[in-house]
């Protein structure tokens, strides 16, 4: 019976301490969380970590869902924000690594190259700016409308449309570059 209960009802019950409701809720959405995390990061290990972090934080976080958006929309936003946070931390780390000397830089370059060769998707996604990556992951990966994606990323529908056309442009440029 719980399986048919709408998300919003499950959330309210979970907030009251209903264990079964919460279990149903996480189980129902884990794949969605992981999927989007993967599309945003392009890496399984990172996506798994992110999904786990989000699940772990979800009990406390549910209290912050104000019900002004659909639960899934809110959840997508949680994933997007968690990813942004991860990127920020990675940026810090990358920054911290500057000045570690040539050895470290060479090592990183090598890692980056290997990764690129291994995974066309990751390679392509890496060449897009973070905003474009987010947009693509939601619009192409999650098959959202531009309006939905805009709501999750906190930008207007028009911005999403612009970003998508930008993605096409970049991809063409990339293809031209590779063809050379």
């Amino acid at each position, binding site marked *: 019976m719980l399986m048919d209960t709408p998300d919003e009802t499950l959330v309210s019950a*979970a907030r009251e*301490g209903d*264990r079964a409701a*919460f*279990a149903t809720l*996480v189980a129902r959405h*884990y*794949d969605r969380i*992981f*999927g989007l995390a*993967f599309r945003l990061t392009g*890496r399984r*290990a990172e996506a*798994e*970590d*992110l*999904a*786990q*972090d*989000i*699940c*772990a*934080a*979800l*009990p*406390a*976080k549910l209290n*912050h*869902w*104000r019900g*002004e958006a659909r639960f899934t929309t809110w959840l997508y*936003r*949680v994933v*997007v*924000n*968690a990813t*942004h*946070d991860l990127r*920020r*931390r990675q940026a*810090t*780390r990358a*920054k911290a690594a500057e000045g570690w000397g040539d050895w470290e830089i060479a090592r990183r370059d090598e*890692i980056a190259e290997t*990764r690129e060769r291994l995974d*066309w998707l990751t390679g*392509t996604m890496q060449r897009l700016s973070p*905003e474009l990556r987010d947009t*693509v*992951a939601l619009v*192409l*990966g999650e098959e959202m409308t531009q309006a939905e994606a805009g709501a999750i990323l*906190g*930008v207007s529908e028009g*911005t999403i449309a612009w970003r998508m056309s930008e*993605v*096409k442009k970049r*991809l*063409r440029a990339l*293809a031209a570059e590779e063809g050379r």
Partner: protein
Amino acid sequence: MTDEFDALRAALKSAPAADAEARARALALAMTNFDRLHAAGQGTADGPRPTEDRPPRAGFLNGVRSMLKSLGTRPALAATTSIAALAVGLAFLLPLRGPGPLLPVETPAAGAPETPAVTTEAPATAGRSAAAADADAAVAPAESAPADIAPVPPSVPPSAASAEAAEGAASAIAPPEQPMVDEPMVALEATEAARLAAPASPMPSALPAPLPETRVAEPPAQAIPDENTEAYATAKANPVKITAEEPVSTFSTDVDTASYALIRSTLDMGLLPAPEQVRIEEMVNYFPYSYPAPDAGQAFRPTIAVMPTPWNPGTSLVTIGLQGALPAVADRPPLNLVFLVDTSGSMEDPRKLGLLKQSLALLLPELRAEDQVAIVAYAGSAGEVLPPTPAGEGDRILAALDNLSAGGATAGAEGIELAYRIAAEMAGEGEVSRVLLATDGDFNVGLSDPAGLEAFIARKRDEGVYLSVLGFGRGNLDDATMQALAQNGNGTAAYIDTLSEARKVLVDQLTGALFPIADDVKVQVEWNPARIAEYRLIGYETRALRREDFNNDRIDAGEIGAGLQVTAIYEVTPVGSEAVLNDPLRYGTAADQGAGPDEMGFLRLRWKDPGAETSQLIEMPITGAEPATTDTRFAAAIAGFGQLLQGSPYLGKWGWNGAIALALANRGEDPFGYRIEAVNLMRLADSLAR
């Protein structure tokens, strides 16, 4: 459509299925945390760190925003009220015994012995939950205020160090040598150390170990940076103090009312305000009270009332009300007002710029012919919209107001500098000058650095130009920054959500809001340990002062405007009451001083006449026989309202019905309907809280 585009779509669509094992792990962890959370019974024990993430299109504002952020928070408030910044993370509360309600205890209570599994997991989960808490952070703004998002530069919170270390180990990158791998261990050891060092809890397993154990283990030195927003937001309610150990309580007055209007606006949206939006002193001070007027020649007069605590039969409430003198309105000095109006794009909203125009138009008829008004707009470029104009020329002023329109990015520094420059030009002998900053909170009135802005406003304050802040609209209201600016500018911060609120702030209280009668008003209460075992100041968390600051005239504090009231409420527990939370010390206290007068305590007030260098002192005993009035009982109901919203542990079973009944019974005359509005808000909150 290009091939690459389709290839990308296909690649994205074929995201790998989730790994069953990883899935199981994540779900198990989620359940563990769920159980802990609900066993602990405090839903927000580890609420998200409210940092923000704003789309890069706003990136060019970041520097200024983060600057204002770092200004507008606890440290800035602390600077003005001169608390030394406290290391929040390490606040060990004394464990309580007896029937008293559970207090939020930050130390990991003795959860370890019963749950060895958790302990052994700690190195892994510590890093992980820190990362989770961190990931959490980005969420808060998205939920509450999508527009208000700032890419605070890679703020590495203290816990992130270990979080990253854990990630480093887990991710594909080979763990770069020892030190990083070690960190989680260090965190664990420190946690253990903290656990050992913590006073043994007399309440076995009262709380399971809180999730982010690492937080406890952070060295205090690291606990401060970038936690700014949170540090303010989570400013803890004042704890119960033991009179024998700390008999003196000192704080600065606060006449702001912004918190109440914010709460009202949040409730009207059908949401319960977050605890960090609740500042009880601002709620209590929102309402006019009819305390006895001061004698001629006195700036204000304190009134004390003692009554049984509505929510605890074993304690009493001591209400200290200060009534500011109301100089004859006819005698008021000419007033120079500079409206500094934010016309940045975000103000484009009938409830922001529209309401602002209406509000200022309401104010105009209250001014006199000899008063002057100037308007400065800042957006794109700061500009003088209206040169200093006598208030008698209402048409010109109204026309200038009407011409304000939102648009463009904000030009930071110039606006506020220009406003102050014009205010200085307008100032004449014996006149009062004030800059009224009207904004939706996204005001990038930055000078080059936060300290610079703070010092600038403080310097202008000393030159006699005051600053008040009016907040409009919701979405990116930066409450903390408003507070900090107004505190530095000796002004009030008010939040205007409706036209009637504008009337209250700008018209009914025109004199008070615009004419200070006393500066640097400080309150100090010394409780008599022979009569009072414990006490607790309700509210004024951001206004605490050190004991020695009371007599130091160089320490800034709040001001009181003409005719305004300030109310502070203590909950005190008499010696011998069943409600005493702390057991007496086995070996007694050093100072069991004898006799002394049979008083509950002693009240001292210091204030300066506006512009004066040295302070004056009022002293009076608190005997315990001072009668309560309708006003003080209503104030108690509002204090209860605020504590209910905060989820205070001190209220016991007392709930919304109690607060509503108490407020209704003590509505008094309520000529403006403020009090019945509060009752209706309580009813609304009651329904929303169910």
